[in-house]
C-alpha cells in the first residue's frame, strides 16, 4: 500500500477516530523503513505517478506482535484501574 492509501485505511479501520496527521506520516514511514520493519518498492500508482508501496517484513511482523502485546497489556491495566475507580465512585 502506498502512503496515501495507508492514511485512508487507518481512518477507515478506526471508524474515522484516527485522522492520520499527514505531516507525520511520511517521516514515520521513513523511520520504520530504516529499522527494517517495512520494505518499499516502486510502482506506478492509480494516478499514474510513481509511488512507493510499503509492506511488512518478517522482523516488522515480529515487532507488530510485540507492540500489540504491549498495547493489550496497557489496555488491560487501564481498564482495571478505571473499573476500580468507578466502583469506588
Amino acid at each position, binding site marked *: 500500500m*502506498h502512503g*496515501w492509501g495507508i492514511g485512508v485505511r487507518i481512518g477507515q479501520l478506526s471508524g474515522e477516530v484516527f485522522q492520520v496527521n499527514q*505531516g507525520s506520516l*511520511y*517521516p514515520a514511514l521513513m523511520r520504520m523503513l530504516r529499522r527494517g520493519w517495512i520494505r518499499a518498492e516502486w510502482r506506478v500508482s492509480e494516478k499514474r505517478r*510513481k*509511488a*512507493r508501496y510499503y509492506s511488512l*517484513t518478517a*522482523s516488522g511482523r515480529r515487532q507488530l506482535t510485540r507492540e500489540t502485546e504491549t498495547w493489550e497489556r496497557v489496555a488491560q491495566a487501564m481498564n482495571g484501574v478505571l473499573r476500580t475507580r468507578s466502583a469506588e465512585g
Partner: protein
Amino acid sequence: MFWERLRHILPLRLRTLFRRSTVERELDDELQDHLEHQVAQFVGRGMSPGQARTEALKALGGVERRKEECRDARGMNAFDHLVRDARLAVRALSRNPGYTTVALVTLALGIGATTAIFTVVNGVLLRPLDYQDPSRLVVLKYRQSSTVAGANFLDFRSQSRSFEAVGAAEWWTPNVSDGVRPEELPGLHLSSDVLPMLGVAPLLGRVFTEEETHEGRNQVVVLSYEIWQRRFGGDSSAVGASLRMDGEPYQIIGVMPKGFRFAPFWATGARLWAPLVLDHRLTDRTGASLRVFARLKPGVTVEAADREMALITDRLGKEYPGTNPEGTAVPLMQMVVGDVRDALLVLFAAVGFVLLIACANVAHLQLLRAATREREFALRGALGASRSRLVQQSLVESVILAVSGGAIGLLVAWGGVRLLTELAPANLPRLEGLTIDPVVLLFVGGISLGATLLFGLAPAVAAARVNLHEPLKEGSRGSADSPRKRRVRGLLVGSEFALALMLLVGAGLVLRSFAARRGLDAGFQADGVFSAVIALRGTSHADRDRRAGFFEQVVDGVSQLPGVTGASAINHLPLHGDNWQFRFFVEGRPAVEPGKEPRAYFRVTRPGYFSTMGITMLAGRDFTRDDLASRAHLVIVNQSLARQQWPGESPLGRRLSVDNPATGADWFTVIGVTKDGRQAGWIDDVRGEMYFPNLDAPGPDDLVGSQSSFVSFLNPVNMTLVARTRGESMDLLKSVQAVVAAVDRDAPVTDVITMRQAVDEQFAEPRFYLTLLTGFALLAVTLAAIGIYGVMSYSVARRSQEIGIRLALGAGTRDAFGLIVGQGMRLAALGGLAGIIGALILSRYLRSLLFGVGPADPVTFLGVVVLLAVVALAAAAIPARRAARVNPLTALRSD
C-alpha cells in the same frame, strides 16, 4: 536480527550516499503522488481544483518541511551534515582569499619543512640497512679504535661463540690498466664469509669461496652493478671475463645487484670486492688495518656478544701483551649513523618548533576570523543550528585547511628533500635512496591531523561559547574583548616567542661553534696548492728500487711547469688522506710497558714539502736531496711531539726509533721541528707527528703487517704529489698528467684535490647543520614577528574606541603609542623569559654540534635577547603608530 536490519539499512544508506539526486526525486514523487490523492479527495467533496490544491498543501503542512523531516528520519544525518559543512567551509575559505592564502602558506611551510626533515631522518636513521635481517649484523672492534690486525681477527673468529659468521674487510684501491687511461678504483678485500653473511645473492655468477682467499687462487673479483654497467655495458658475458688490476689478471666471477653497497660506512664507495689473503699475516698483531663484521647467532643479544668480545680481548691481551685493548661488539647500524644521529634529531626538533609556531599563527588567524564571524554564528544559532553543529562546522573548516595545507606541504617537502640532497655533506650516510615513501606519507597525514587539533580547537571552542544575543543587537561591535580571549591570544603569541627564542639560541650557538672551527690554525697555507695521488701498483715502476726515482722525476717535472713555485710529495695528505700512526721509542728512555708506548702520525716526505705546503719550520731544516741520496736516517717532528718527548729542550740531534730498541733499533736523528697543524680531522687535538724522508730501500714488499723492517715503509708505492701554483691550482691537472705519463704511461693520477677543497670538505657537515638551523630560526622569528604584529593590529582596531576616549580626555599621542608598545613588549618579555628557561634546559642536547662554545654561552643568549627585543619592538611599533594617529572623533563615533 541485527544482520537482517543491516541488510535493509545498508542499501538504503549507500543509495542515499551515492545516488542523491535520484533519492531526492523519489521523495518528491512520493509526496506529489500523495498530494494528488488529497486533491482528488477534496475535489470529490466539491471543492474547485484550485481550492483543492491549496487545501491539500495546507493539509500536508509545507512540502519542504516534510521533506526535511523525512530526510532526518532517514538517518543519514551525520554524513550529510559533514558533506554540507565541507562545502560551506570551502566556500567560506574562498570568500576570504587573503586570509586563506596566508593560512595555507604558513601551514604548507611548516608541514613541508617538517616532512622534508623527517624524510631525511627516516631515510638515514629509521630505514633498516639493505641486507638480510640487518639488525643481527654487528661490527667487532676495540673501544678506542676501529681496526683490527690479522691474527687478532682470526682469533676473534675462532674463539667466539656468539656469531654464526665472522668476516673481515680491508681497503683496496686497485689500478685498473686496460683501456685508454689508467684508473684507480675503490674496492675492498673481503674474507669469504662477508658477502654470504649479508644475505644478498649476486645478480650474476657467484661470490668467492674460502679456497680463493689464499695466495695463488685469489685473483677473482666480484663487481658492483655500476662497474658492470660502466665497463662491460651490462653484458652477461662479463662473468668469466678478465680484468687487469695491479698488473695482474683478475677473473670476474660475479656481479652484485643494483644498489648493493658494502661497506655501509667507512668504505662507502667500494665498488668491487676481491678475496682477502691473510696467508702472510697469520701471526701479525700490530698491523691493524682490518674491519671485522659478524652476524649474531639466533637468540644471542648484542650485549652478550659485547661481553664475549671483552673476554676474548682480555685473554688475548694477556697472552700477547700490548696488542689487544678492550674489545666490543657494536650494531652495524650504529656504526653507520651513530655520528649524525644527534645532529639529525636536533634538526628534527628545530623544525618541529617551526611547525608549532606556524600552527600558533594559524590558530591566531582562526580566532581573529571567528571573532569577526560572531554575528554570522549568532544568526545561525538563532535559526536553529545547535551548538554542536557550529562546533562541527568550525572543526570541518580547520580540517579542510589542514588537509589542503598538508597537500601543499607535501609538494614543499618534495622540493625540500631535493634541496637537502644537493646541499648535504657527502659524508652524510645513506643519502642515496632518500624518497618520500609510505612512512613519510603517514607522517604527513599524522601531523596534518595534529596541526588541525592544535589550531582548530581554539576557534571551535570559541564557536561553542558564542553568545547568541549580544552580537545581534543593533550597534554591537561583537562581543567584548574578554580577558579570557586576551589571555588566549597572549598565550599564543608568548609561546611563539619562546619557541623562536629557543631556536635562535640554538642557531646562535652553532654559528659561534662554526666561527670557532674556522678560527683554528690550519698550520699550512691552503690556497694555491694542488694535490694528486699517484699509485704505482701494477706499473713498471712498482719495483722497490724504481719507486723513489719515479717520484723524484715526477716532482722535478712538475716543479718546472709554468706557474709552479714549488713541488714535493708526501705519503698521506693531511686532512684528506689516510692517517697512519706508529708507536716510537726515544733514545735514552727507560722501557715502557707494551701497549703504552707513545704514538705519532707517520709521514714520509720528499724535500721541499714544508715550503710547498707553507708549513713553518720552527727549528732545524728540511730534508735535502743529498740526505735522500745518502739514505740518511733522519726525521722531522712537529711541535707537539718535541714538547711531549723533550720538554724545555731542543730536540735537534736527539734520536728516536720505530723499531723496538730491545730487538734492534733503527735510530733516526731529529733535524727539524715544524709548527703544529691540522692532521686527521679539523677539530681533532693535535698529536705528535713524525716526517721521514722518502728513501729507496730494498726489502720485501711493504704489505701492511708483513714482517719487513721499518725502513721499507719509507719507500711507499703510492705518494701524493703537492704543488704550489701562482694561479688557479686546478688548471695544473692536465700538465701533471702529461708529466706523469711521460715517466710511466700506466701510472694513474687520481684523487685530485686542492688543499682549499680539502679544508672546505672539513666544514661541509657543520655548514650544513648551520644553514638549516639558521634557516629555521629565521623562519621562526619571522612567523613570531608576524604573530605579534597581528595581535597588536587587532588590539588597536578593537580598542580604537578606548584610545579615542583617552585621547579626547587629554592623553598625548605618545601615551597611546606607549600603551600599545608596552602591551606588546610585555607579551614578548614573558615569552622571552619562558624561552630562555627552555633554551637553558634544551641546549644540552646540542652538545654534539658545538665546538669551543658551551651550551649556556652568555654571549649568544644576550645577543639573541637583544635581537628579539628589537624585533618585538618593531612588530609592536607599527600598529602602535596607527594607534597614535587615531582621530578621537571618528573613533568615538564609529560603530
